[in-house]
């Protein structure tokens, strides 16, 4: 072989290109995938270095870390896809502690035969979501499983953020009398995914609310209100999140059903599929528990932010050793809003 002859590598993106087992086995094919797809899309010095781990600069403040796996089906839905969802999901988990998210890692489990065109679309969506949120995807991993052993692609992201002095948020800090605020309508994400899955078409399409919430959180924490708990009601919906807080804080809650915002098409779709929107996932909403005196101000601040225009005060924390979340129904009766039990819901995040 002459010295100037290089081995030919097939281009990654032929129109019918698909993931092969080789792309996860650590050889040239994998190196090509990383170089041509991930490094180009995520575009930062840490990835470019190509080391086993990213060495990050020193930060001032406590570190906050979280991770989230994404197995949504279908991969693409109205208002988003598994790519941006996997970025927003982890950014939001870090943000709910009051932290500024800085870095993400992304781990891909790809199924043999998955089209490169789809993977490219997903990676582009992740890159753009990360860029918009001001975070860098600094490390990653790719594995390929045999056909039939995965469902296209699963993505796990891990996030690190920094928390400035003086911020203490925790699920065990809710106190009787505190107000419960919700940043907007419930059920949008879950119903966007489910209606795509069930091929339901409504007059007005339902869009996922997937969005990064750290900007909204920063605004809320800067306004001086005494915020005690922040949490994003993702899988399991608002009902599950409130039960978690009640459990952790050893309190009860009383909600007002007619105060909980919900879009009409979402309500209709829930009705159609026999689902209670209180249990349907959100990906761009948060619940805040705050001191009663600060609720009005905090609500105003939230409503001034583009991601919380429809924020509402939905209830208050009450003393209750049984830790029940109760709700005054819109009909005028009362009921428990319990932990999710019963039918397994399809994969929506």
């Amino acid at each position, binding site marked *: 072989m002459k010295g100037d002859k290089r081995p030919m590598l097939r281009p990654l993106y032929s129109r019918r290109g698909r993931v092969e087992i080789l792309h996860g086995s650590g050889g040239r094919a994998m190196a090509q995938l990383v170089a041509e797809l991930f490094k180009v899309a995520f575009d930062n010095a840490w990835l470019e270095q190509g080391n086993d781990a990213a060495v990050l600069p020193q930060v001032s403040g406590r570190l906050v870390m979280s991770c989230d796996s994404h197995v949504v089906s279908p991969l693409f839905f109205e208002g988003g896809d598994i790519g941006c969802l996997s970025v927003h999901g982890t950014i939001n988990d870090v943000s709910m502690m009051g932290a500024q998210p800085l870095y993400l890692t992304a781990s891909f489990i790809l199924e043999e035969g998955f089209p490169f065109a789809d993977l490219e679309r997903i990676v582009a969506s992740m890159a753009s979501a990360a860029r918009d949120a001001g975070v860098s995807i600094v490390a990653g991993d790719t594995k390929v499983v045999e056909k039939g052993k995965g469902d296209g692609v699963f993505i796990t992201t891990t996030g690190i953020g920094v928390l400035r002095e003086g911020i203490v948020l925790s699920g065990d800090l809710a106190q009787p009398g505190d107000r419960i605020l919700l940043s907007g309508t419930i059920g949008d994400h879950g119903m966007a995914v489910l209606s795509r899955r069930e091929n339901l078409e409504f007059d007005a399409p339902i869009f996922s609310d997937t969005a990064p919430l750290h900007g909204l959180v920063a605004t809320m924490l800067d306004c001086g209100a005494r915020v005690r708990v922040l949490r994003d009601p993702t899988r399991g919906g608002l009902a599950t999140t409130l039960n978690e807080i009640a459990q952790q804080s050893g309190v009860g809650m009383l909600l007002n059903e007619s105060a909980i915002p919900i879009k009409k098409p979402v309500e209709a779709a829930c009705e159609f599929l026999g689902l209670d929107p209180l249990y349907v996932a959100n990906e761009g909403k948060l619940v805040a528990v705050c001191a009663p005196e600060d609720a009005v101000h905090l609500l105003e601040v939230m409503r001034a932010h583009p991601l919380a225009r429809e924020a509402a005060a939905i209830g208050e924390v009450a003393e209750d050793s049984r830790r029940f979340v109760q709700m005054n*129904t*819109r009909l005028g009766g009362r*009921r428990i809003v*319990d932990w999710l039990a*019963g*039918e397994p819901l399809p994969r929506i995040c």
Partner: protein
Amino acid sequence: MKYLDEFRDAALAEHISASITREATSSSGYRLMEFCGGHTHAISRYGITDLLPATIRLIHGPGCPVCVLPVGRINQAVRLVRERDVILCTYADVLRVPCSGQMSLMRARSEGADVRMIYSTQNALQVARENPERQVVFFAIGFETTTPPTAVAVKQAHASGMENFSILCNHVLTPAAMQAILSARTGKMLDGFVGPAHVSTVIGSKPYERFAAEYSKAVVIAGFEPLDVMQAILMLVRQINQGRATVENEFSRAVTREGNLKAQKLVAEVFELRDAFEWRGLGSISESALKLRPEFSRFDAELKFGVDYVPVRDHKACECAAVLCGEKRPQECRIFGTVCTPENPVGSCMVSSEGACAAYYSYGRFREELT
């Protein structure tokens, strides 16, 4: 939302509530059975009992198809997937019903059995078409509402000569269950029924007329929206106050006296009466369920795979039986909310969202310690 908001209107609810309170003054009270799980669910989810005076006592009926299915029927399904290696297609709420040997379809699935959750009989047919080399069984359950779609599926399978599709038939009949309740102890103390909603769209209001006449019980057929239920309660109170016992139809937007004749004809083409069928709680009731007619018997999974029904006793602490025939309230069961919870159900009434125990546990148990 059209057809929804108007049936959940708080001002109207208050208005009906005031009328009921004003009129339900008989010192002997009003014992009303809401027949369907759908009603039970609406009552609990909207907190309707808070809007009723103390004179009204609502008693949950047996109208929850998952709840009335005896353990032996689930055992049959489990045997089909574990011993006959079929693909079993089922509606979701059957999955978690416990059966013999601490088993359930969900657990069988986790051990490798091929159990698939479907939304309609058409999904089951689709699974059969996509798996021509496998046998596919549809776990057909439900009252008269779900029977016509099963009949359609069987006719389609018949017409296209499908060899790998069959049904495990557990379709049951509402009037037979009502008859059983009326003949039992509970029946004598009842003043009236909130009659079935969706079932009645198929069978009409006529089948209930003989109950009103023979047993002198007021019957008001009601929809599943909260205001439907409240309006029906008001209508029942008025009948009882006037000493009448007739069948009235609150759900007139969907139910006629004759019902859906086309659906009835379809069901009659495909199904015939079983001599007897065992119900959880109500025991064996003659002519209370359906089986496939001889010309469709090759779609009968019980015959095709030779899995006979073997009766099994319920868990000895479980009071589902008494709850289902209205003799006990869920919270009167010793294991309610302790051993038996939605996460770890002992009996079927804690599984289905239409089950009285699950409805009471999920929506109403705050009342227990307050009162």
